[in-house]
């Protein structure tokens, strides 16, 4: 039951992804062609609000509901994997017009063919786990 709150927040995130049009293949094309501010505005604003929120949390030492100290760890810097992996994902993002969050949202939106995109992404994730020890990190 304690996970139910994440279902609620996820639902809110799905509504937001859809109504912000971040799920739209057209919007992603527009972004990678630098022809509108829309996506840059959304991502930029989200980063600024995220930064301010974390500064506020730190300044007032706000604890989480379960009493833990909030201090999210930075992901380890792995130059090669961050860059190459990011590049590979970027290719897929521009092809399908979706990043992982929108894949789920689009299935809910009724574009059922994105179940195939999700399945392919799961296979990609599994293949990564199989060969990761041979990849530069």
């Amino acid at each position, binding site marked *: 039951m304690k*996970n139910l709150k994440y279902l609620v927040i996820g*639902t809110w995130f799905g509504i937001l992804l859809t109504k912000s049009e971040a799920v739209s293949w057209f919007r992603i094309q527009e972004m990678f062609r630098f022809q509108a501010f829309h996506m840059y505005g959304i991502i930029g604003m989200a980063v600024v609000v995220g930064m301010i929120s974390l500064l506020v949390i730190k300044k007032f030492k706000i604890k989480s509901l379960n009493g833990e100290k909030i201090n999210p760890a*930075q992901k380890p810097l792995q130059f090669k994997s961050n860059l190459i992996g990011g590049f590979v994902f970027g290719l897929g993002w521009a092809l399908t017009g979706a990043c992982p969050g929108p894949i789920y*949202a689009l299935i809910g939106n009724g574009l059922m063919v994105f179940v195939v995109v999700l399945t392919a992404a*799961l296979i990609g994730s599994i293949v990564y786990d199989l060969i990761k020890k041979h990849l530069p990190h």
Partner: protein
Amino acid sequence: MESLLQGHWPWYITGILFGLIVPLLLFVGNKPFGISKSLKDIASLLPQNRFHQIKHDLKPNFWRIYFVVGIIIGGYLAVLFLKGNATIDLSNSTKSDLENIGIVSFDGLAPSQIFNWEFLLSTKGLLIMVLGGFLIGFGVRYANGCTSGHAIMGLSIFSSSSLIAVLGFFAGGLLMTHILFPLLFN
């Protein structure tokens, strides 16, 4: 109110609301915002065999399964009640660029001529949806994060790994949009 919610949500509102998901997840359960690892979570639920063995402690990650199921529900509700699949007010220059590579309809969230079951079975459809999905899954795991985990969460905490990953996202996206996709689609 209802018509306001059903109309277009401006980027400066949705941007703020996206950003607030970061402190919300931290506050309710000290969870870092991110979606890409859900692929590993789901993959670890599948039956394991000699070729598919994932060492993954699902218990501390199980919340993410609820989160992504929520995203599907949210996507459904947004279309059902909030006109979430209304036609996008796309810039004219993007429209004419896309018309030049053969996109004919701009209705809905994604071109219906591409994202349908019949087109999936064509070579181009397979490349776009199956190869595209594979590249997403492989890439986000290799990069250790996606748009939410790296671009929004990671940049919010000034993570240098996230900055490099985001540069990678854009390098790949620009190459695909400007060079590979026109070759593929013409």
